[in-house]
Structures are given as C-alpha cells and as structure tokens.
C-alpha cells in the first residue's frame, strides 16, 4: 500500500488501461500538451503520443459526440470535461445519444465510453463552475454514474469504467485531486455498484459519497468524542446504487443521515431517503435527515460558499437531531 494523490491515481488508471487496450484514447481540453487543467493526464502525451492523447478545442458537444460515435464503432474513448459544469454544453450528446443509442438501436450497438472530470464547489469559482451533477445524470436510464472519494477508488472505479461496455460518468472533485490516500499495490478494480463501509457503527448510518466522505470523516471525530458511533457508507457508485448495503445498515442502526453535495431538490440524498423509507419503514426510529448543498446558486464569497455545501457543523447538527 502506497499513499498517492487522487490526481495521480486517475492518471495511473488511464495509463494502465491505455497500455492494456489500444482502443482506449483520451480527448479533452488541455489534456495533452498542458498535461490536463488539473494535471490528471500528466506525462500521458509523452507516453502515448498525439494520436491517443488528444487536445480538443473548446467544443464540449463536438468532442463528446465524437467519443460517442467512436464508441459506437468499437473504440473505448475517455472524454475529459475540464469540469462537469461544462458537460451541460454537451448535455444533448450525453443524454440523447450516449444514454439512448443502445436502446433505440434495439441492442444493436453498445457505447463503451467514459466521461470524466472535475466537479463540485468550494473554490470560489462561482455558480457556473461549481455544479455537482451526479443526481442529474443518474436519472437517465442507460448511463452509469460513479463518484470516487479516495485515491484507491479514483483508480479502481476508473479502470472498471474504462472496461465497462456502457457510457459511464466518473465524477471527480477539485478539492480531492491533491489529497493523498492509500492505494493497493498491483492490478485491481473497484466494482461498479458496490458501496464501501468506511466505518462500522451502531448508533446511526451516514450515507455519503464524493468529497462529502472526507467531511463526514472529519465530523466523525467530533461524534466519536460525543460517544456517537456512526456507520459510514461511501456509496462510490450512484447508478447503479448498492441498495442492499444501505438497507442492511439502516436495519441495524435504525437511523439515517444522508450527506452529499447535490442540491436538496431531487438530489441523491432525496432518492436514498425515499428508498429507505419504503424498504426500512418498520426499522426506522427517527425521520431520515439530509445534509446537502442549499437551494441557491453557488455564491462567490467564501463566507457564503462554505455554508452552501455540507460542512462539519451541519452534519453534527443533523446527527444530534437524529440520535436524540
């Protein structure tokens, strides 16, 4: 086990899979000569050359569609969105083409491709650059959505995604690129659709994913001092979602707080709360609470922005209410 940065785990995943399969290529804005806006493709141009590490002009719809067409023909593209906030420029391609073509072609085609890139708020880059869109894309049958929180999964989920025969969005997070965590030695894959129990506990379940995993773990130190033993689940995969792991935990702890960076209205936590209230109704000893981003565009000022995404104080407040 070595500790590496999340961005290096992303690069290692791409590098290993490109070495393994000549059909895999990477295209995106600044991925080649610039080494990636967030340095996730550092060194890959030198290693694989310009035919496979391709700088695109700023044309999200164009290069997303190019990747879908190439995947229909049998290649296995990786498209990097500098941030998923820009993926909305390519929304038609992702939603009307990538997601639907297998179905509309009656199963004649598959679309094995990965859309990956940065997401999330917290960096004072304003409302247009701070979206956490995993809930939006997860509503479309045909797409899969994964959100790695740690370096091990940044690598393992991306490798699985590249080998998967479906269009998959791998949604990373700017706040995590520089964070180091342990990565297994040698070849491994993180299965898509399998949650990870970060900590076992008895008093309540906290279901979270992405950057919020780190915030929950930070809050957990306070909870521990308060004598509260939380079971913490990192969903890792939003679509498909590992319902058995979530339900089993709630049936054990009888309490649930959902924490994630999507918006409160129709967000990932809304979906978890709805499914748990149906499947675990007789087991719940308290209402399910949600800690999410707030119902407002992302403000610029850090004094405001810090309150807009889940933070330690809001998590602890929700936990206290649920275990009271």
């Amino acid at each position: 086990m070595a500790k590496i940065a999340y961005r290096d785990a992303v690069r290692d995943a791409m590098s290993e899979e490109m070495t393994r399969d000549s059909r895999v290529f990477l295209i995106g804005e600044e991925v080649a000569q610039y080494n990636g806006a967030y340095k996730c493709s550092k060194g890959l141009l030198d290693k694989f050359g310009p035919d496979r590490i391709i700088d695109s002009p700023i044309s999200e719809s164009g290069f997303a569609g190019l990747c879908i067409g190439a995947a229909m023909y049998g290649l296995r593209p990786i498209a990097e969105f500098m941030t998923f906030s820009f993926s909305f420029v390519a929304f038609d391609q992702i939603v009307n083409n990538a997601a639907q073509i297998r179905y509309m072609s009656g199963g004649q085609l598959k679309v094995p491709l990965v859309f990956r890139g940065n997401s999330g708020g917290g960096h004072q880059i304003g409302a247009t650059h701070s979206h956490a869109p995993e809930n939006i894309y997860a509503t479309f049958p045909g797409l899969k959505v994964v959100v790695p929180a740690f370096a091990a999964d940044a690598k393992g989920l991306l490798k699985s995604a590249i080998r998967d025969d479906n269009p998959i969005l791998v949604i990373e997070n700017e706040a995590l690129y520089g964070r180091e965590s342990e990565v297994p030695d040698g070849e491994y894959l993180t299965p898509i659709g399998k949650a990870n129990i970060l900590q076992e506990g008895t008093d309540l379940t906290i279901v979270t994913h992405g950057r919020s995993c780190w915030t929950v773990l930070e809050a957990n130190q306070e909870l521990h001092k308060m004598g509260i033993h939380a079971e913490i689940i990192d969903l890792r995969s939003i679509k498909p979602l590992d319902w058995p792991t979530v339900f089993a935990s709630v049936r054990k702890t009888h309490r649930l707080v959902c924490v994630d960076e999507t918006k409160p209205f129709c967000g990932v936590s809304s979906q978890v709360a709805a499914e748990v209230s149906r499947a675990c109704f007789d087991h719940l000893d308290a209402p399910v609470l949600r800690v999410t981003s707030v119902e407002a565009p992302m403000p610029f000022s850090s004094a405001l922005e810090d309150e807009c995404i889940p933070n330690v104080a809001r998590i602890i407040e929700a936990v206290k209410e649920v275990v009271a």
Partner: protein
Amino acid sequence: MKKKPLPTGAGVLASTQPLPEYGTVPDLSRDQRLEWYRMMYLTRKFEERSYQSYQTGLIGGFCHLYNGQEAVAAGTFAAITDADPVITAYRDHAHGLMRGIRPGPAFAELYGRATGIVKGKGGSMHYFNVEKQMYGGHGIVGGQTALGLGLAFATKYLGEKKVCFCYMGDGAVNQGTFHESLNLAQLMKIPVIYVIENNMYSMGTSVDRHSAPVELYKRALGYDMLGVRAEGMDFDHVRQVSWTLAERARSENLPAILELMTYRYRGHSMSDPQYYRSKEEVEEYRKHDPVEILRSRILSEATVNEKDLEALEEKVRKEVQEAHDWALASPFPAQSEIYTDIYA
C-alpha cells in the same frame, strides 16, 4: 447505345475550392445499376405505402418521408461500399432500406412490432442496421453530425481508409454541434463527408428564412473546408461527385460538405398541412423526379427493355405489399422488453 462516361464535374453547381481530380467514378455493371434503380423504386413504394398506413392510423408518432430525395441516398451510397459507415437524421427510411433493412422489419418498426428492425423501440426515426454499417436514424436535428465525426475518427484511428457519410437536412446547418463538428473535422483531418440534403425547407421554414447565407455549402468556408453544391435529383451526377469527395477523404483524410439540391414531395412529417408552399411548386418539382430520371436513363442505355423494367417494378410492389402484411401480422413486443437493451 453505350453509356457515355460523365465528366467528373457533372452536376456540380458550385464549390468553395476547385474540385480535386480523381477522375471518373468506375462504371456500375448493368445489374448493379438495375439494383440501385430497384432500391430507389422500393423506397418510393415503401413510403407511399407508409403514407397510407399513417392515414389509416397504423403508424403512431412521427413519420418523415423521403419521397423526391431518393437519388441523394442512392447516388451517395453507390459511390462508396457497405463497409463505409453512414449515419443520418430522422428522415431515414431510404438510408435504412438501401443499407440492407428488409421491407418487412422496416414496416414492422413503423407499426411498433417486436419484429421491427430495432424491436419496436425506435420507430420511424431510429432505423439502425449496424451489420451494414448504418448507424441510425437520429431524432435531434444536428446531433448526429458529431456522431458521424466520431465514426469517421474511429475508422482513421484504426487505419481502415474508410469514409463516413453523415446526412443532415438543410435546417441542421444552424445547430452549434454541426459547427463544432466542422471545425474538429478539418482541424483533426477526419474523413467525414457532411451531406446536406437541401430540400429547401427546415420543417416549414424555407432556406432564405432560416440561413443567412442561402448557399449552404459556403458554411465550409469558415473552416477552410471544401464545400460543394451539386444537383441532387440525378443518381449518376450524385454518384460522381460523391465518389470524388470519398476518394479525397480516403486518400487525404479530408472532410467536406456536399450540399445536394433536392426536394421532398410530402410535408415535413405526416401532420404537416404545408401552408408554407404552393401545390404548383410541388408539381413543378415532381416533373424532375429522381426515380423517373434514372428509369429513363436506364431505358435509353438499352441494356434493359420496358417490359423487363415493368416486371421488376411489379415484383417490388408485390414485395412491399407482402412486407406490409407480414409486419401487420407480427406481434407487439412483450412488456418485459421495456427493460431490455438499456445496459450492455
């Protein structure tokens, strides 16, 4: 009378750069020419039958007919091979039939049956036949232009020396994705030919009301790309210019816009009352019918006589009727089909 070779610039009306010289498209054999005529005639009869079926309520949703435009699909397809990928928008019946979809599964798809070419999951707008490199059938105007780019990119990536023909209506030239695709195609040297099927109307909006430059091939100028406008009602003319651009794409990885001037006899979709044009205009265009033009030429070449041609046509009409009957007798999809083919 032996067929004279066409001059390489036959049917070309204008271009942004001088047309490259790749010579004359290789001759088709008598049987090949007859087969392309048969495909055009089949498409015409298939769609006339579809028109009736729509009127009697057998087809739900949209149904965009290609009547009048048959020489565009036939002439371009006859310039390339079935190994070259093609992709189009929702006016896709001709492209499907001419790339191997049998009339039975084609009708069955229109009628929403389990035996449809895409199992009743796509309908009129989403014909696919990947076995013959026909990649749809796409519903969003201009959305397929980026997919065509990707198909062509993949052939180049794999070193196959192929060309992708990507079809679109004249209305699609105003979509942003098309312009992103043009820039990427020229910048990255991708062997894709964008065929603008200019039938003069973007739904009910005529070209002069929807495009600042009415000469649509000139959209290529902004991208240092070759743009060609050519006559689109004559199979042989379409085939010659398509072959030139295809050869150029294969040997130099260069994309192009090919604007083919054509006309659709029917409304945009079946529910279109056509207030935007006169009956006289439609009748005028019907005098230059692409199916008739090829039919007359084949007869003038004296390789086949009127009687044989009529026998061929009779056979096609019978095939269409039988395919229609077969499709109508086919079962609807099982409810369980809702949840299949979503993920691979």
